[in-house]
C-alpha cells in the first residue's frame, strides 16, 4: 500500500487503459496521464525537486514541472488531496418516512434455494396482505411523509402477483391519496414473472414506474437456483413472459435482475445471455446467504470475482458500442447530477426514511429484516415505537462506521447494506468485508468505463 492511500485522501488505480485518481472527500474523479499518476505517488511526501529527481529517468524535467503544476492547481481548487469534510449529519431529524416496501404476499410460487424469505413465507405463515392493511400502510406513509412529495412504494413478497387484486386496489387508492394530499406515488413491483399475463402486464405497464424482473442468468444456472414448486426449472416459462413485458415497456423503466453464486462465478456469460435476449437494463447481484451453503460466496472466490468484473467491464464497453442503451446497474455512476453529500453518507435510509410492512401490518427497518423479532419497529396500529432501534439505523453512516470512515469508496458506496452487515458480522455497524471488496471493484470498473466513453 502506498503512502497516499494511507493518508486516505485519494485513491488511484489503473484499469481499462486508464489511470484514474479519485479524490475521496470532494468526490472528484480525474483521468490522468501516467506522468501525473507517478508524481501523485510521491506528491504528499516529497517536494517538487525530490520528485523530479526520482522521475528523471522516465520523464523530461519540463514535463514533470507542468504536470506537477496541474496537480497543484487542482489541489488549490479543492479537487485533489482535499480535506475530510465535516458534514453536520442531522439526518432525518423529523423522522420522515418516504419509502415503503409493501409485502403484499408472504407466499411464493417458486422455491429459490437462496431465498432470504425462506421460499416466500419469511419464516412465518404463508399469508396475503388484505386490502385494509394495505390501505392503512399507504395512509401511514402519507401521514409520516411530512413535506416530502415523492413517495415510493415497492410491491414485494414473496411473490406480489399472487395478490394482484390487492396491488391493483392499492394503486387506485394511492392515486386518490395523491390528489388529497398533494403527493406523488412512485409505484414499483418486484416479481419472478411466473404469473405475468396480458391483463396484469397491461396494468403494471401503465401504473408502475419500474418493474424488477428476477431471472438468474443462463438456463442451467437459473433452473438450478430457481425451481418451480414441483422441482422443475422455471427458465422456459419465464423468459418469454419477460420478453413480452419488456416489449410493452418501450422507454419506461424495467430491469432484469439476477443473482450469481459461487456456482456461476463466470456471471459475465449470464449478462451476455441477457443482452442476446434483448434485455437492456440488467443487474447481476452476488448472493447473500449463510456461509455454510455450497453456493455461498466465500473469501476464496473473491479473486475470481474481481477478475470477472474487470472482464465484464471490457465486454460491456464493447456491447455498449453496438447498443448504447445497454445498462448494467452496477456500472452506472452519475458523476455530475448524483446525490448530495448527506445522501451519499447515509445510503439506503432503512429504518428511518425507508420501512417494510408485512401482511400482518408489522413494521421493520427493511425487507431483509422482516421476521426478525428484535428488529420490529412497531405496527401500523402503534406506529414506530422502537425509537432506540430507529436511532441505531439513523446513526449508521459512512462517518460513524469504522471501516467506512477510512474507506476510499465511502461516498460512492454509502456504507453498504445494513442487513448484509448484520447477518455476517452481527452488527449493522460492521460492513460485510466480501461485499466491500466487490463494491469497490464495481466502482473502479464503473469509473474506468466512464473514462473510456
Amino acid at each position, binding site marked *: 500500500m502506498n503512502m497516499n492511500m494511507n493518508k486516505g485522501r485519494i485513491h488511484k488505480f489503473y484499469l481499462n487503459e486508464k489511470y484514474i485518481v479519485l479524490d475521496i472527500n470532494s468526490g472528484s474523479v480525474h483521468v490522468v496521464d501516467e506522468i501525473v499518476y507517478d508524481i501523485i505517488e510521491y506528491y504528499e511526501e516529497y517536494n517538487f525537486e525530490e520528485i523530479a529527481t526520482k522521475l528523471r529517468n522516465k520523464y523530461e524535467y519540463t514535463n514533470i514541472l507542468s504536470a506537477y503544476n496541474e496537480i497543484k492547481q487542482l489541489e488549490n481548487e479543492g479537487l485533489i488531496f482535499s480535506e475530510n*469534510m465535516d458534514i453536520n449529519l442531522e439526518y432525518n431529524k423529523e423522522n420522515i418516512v418516504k419509502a415503503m416496501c409493501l409485502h403484499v404476499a408472504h407466499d411464493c410460487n417458486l422455491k429459490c434455494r437462496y431465498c432470504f424469505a425462506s421460499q416466500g413465507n419469511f419464516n412465518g405463515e404463508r399469508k396475503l396482505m388484505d386490502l385494509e392493511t394495505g390501505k392503512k400502510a399507504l395512509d401511514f406513509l402519507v401521514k409520516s411523509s411530512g413535506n416530502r412529495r415523492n413517495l415510493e412504494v415497492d410491491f414485494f413478497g414473496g411473490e406480489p402477483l399472487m395478490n394482484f387484486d390487492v396491488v391493483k386496489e392499492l394503486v387506485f387508492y394511492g392515486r386518490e391519496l395523491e390528489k388529497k394530499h398533494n403527493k406523488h406515488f412512485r409505484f414499483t413491483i418486484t416479481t419472478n414473472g411466473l404469473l405475468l399475463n396480458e391483463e396484469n402486464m397491461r396494468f403494471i405497464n401503465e401504473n408502475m414506474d419500474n418493474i424488477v424482473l428476477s431471472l438468474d442468468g443462463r438456463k442451467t444456472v437459473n433452473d438450478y437456483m430457481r425451481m418451480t414448486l414441483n422441482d422443475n426449472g422455471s427458465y422456459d416459462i419465464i423468459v418469454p413472459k419477460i420478453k413480452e413485458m419488456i416489449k410493452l415497456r418501450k422507454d419506461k423503466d424495467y430491469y432484469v435482475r439476477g443473482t450469481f453464486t459461487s456456482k456461476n462465478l463466470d456471471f459475465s456469460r449470464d449478462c451476455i445471455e441477457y443482452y442476446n435476449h434483448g434485455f437492456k437494463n440488467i443487474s447481476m447481484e452476488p448472493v447473500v446467504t449463510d456461509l455454510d451453503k455450497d453456493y455461498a460466496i466465500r473469501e476464496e472466490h473473491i479473486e475470481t470475482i474481481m477478475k470477472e468484473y474487470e472482464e465484464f467491464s471490457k465486454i460491456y464497453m464493447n456491447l455498449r458500442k453496438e447498443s448504447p442503451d445497454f445498462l448494467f446497474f452496477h456500472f452506472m455512476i452519475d458523476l455530475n447530477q448524483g446525490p448530495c453529500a448527506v445522501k451519499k453518507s447515509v445510503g439506503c435510509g432503512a429504518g428511518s426514511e425507508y420501512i417494510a410492512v408485512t401482511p400482518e401490518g408489522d413494521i421493520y427497518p427493511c425487507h431483509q429484516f422482516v421476521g426478525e423479532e428484535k428488529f420490529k419497529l412497531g405496527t401500523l396500529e402503534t406506529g414506530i415505537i422502537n425509537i432506540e432501534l430507529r436511532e441505531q439505523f439513523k446513526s449508521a453512516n459512512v462517518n460513524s462506521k469504522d471501516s467506512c470512515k477510512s474507506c476510499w469508496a465511502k461516498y460512492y458506496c454509502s456504507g453498504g447494506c445494513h442487513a448484509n452487515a448484520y447477518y455476517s458480522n452481527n452488527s449493522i455497524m460492521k460492513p460485510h468485508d466480501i461485499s466491500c471488496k466487490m463494491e469497490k471493484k464495481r466502482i473502479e470498473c464503473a469509473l474506468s468505463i466512464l473514462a473510456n466513453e
Partner: protein
Amino acid sequence: MEYIKTLTNKNLKETTLYAGCGECQTSCQSACKTSCTVGNQKCENEKANEK
C-alpha cells in the same frame, strides 16, 4: 490542463449547502432489491440542478 481530465463538475462539498432535502429516490443496495445504488441516482433538488 494538458495531463489531467476531470470527469466531475461538482465538488461534493458544495452539495452540503443544500444537502439532505430528501426528495431523491431511496436506494436499497442489496441483492434482492431494486439495487439502485446511490452512485447511479439523480439528485432531485431543483436548486442544486440549476447550477
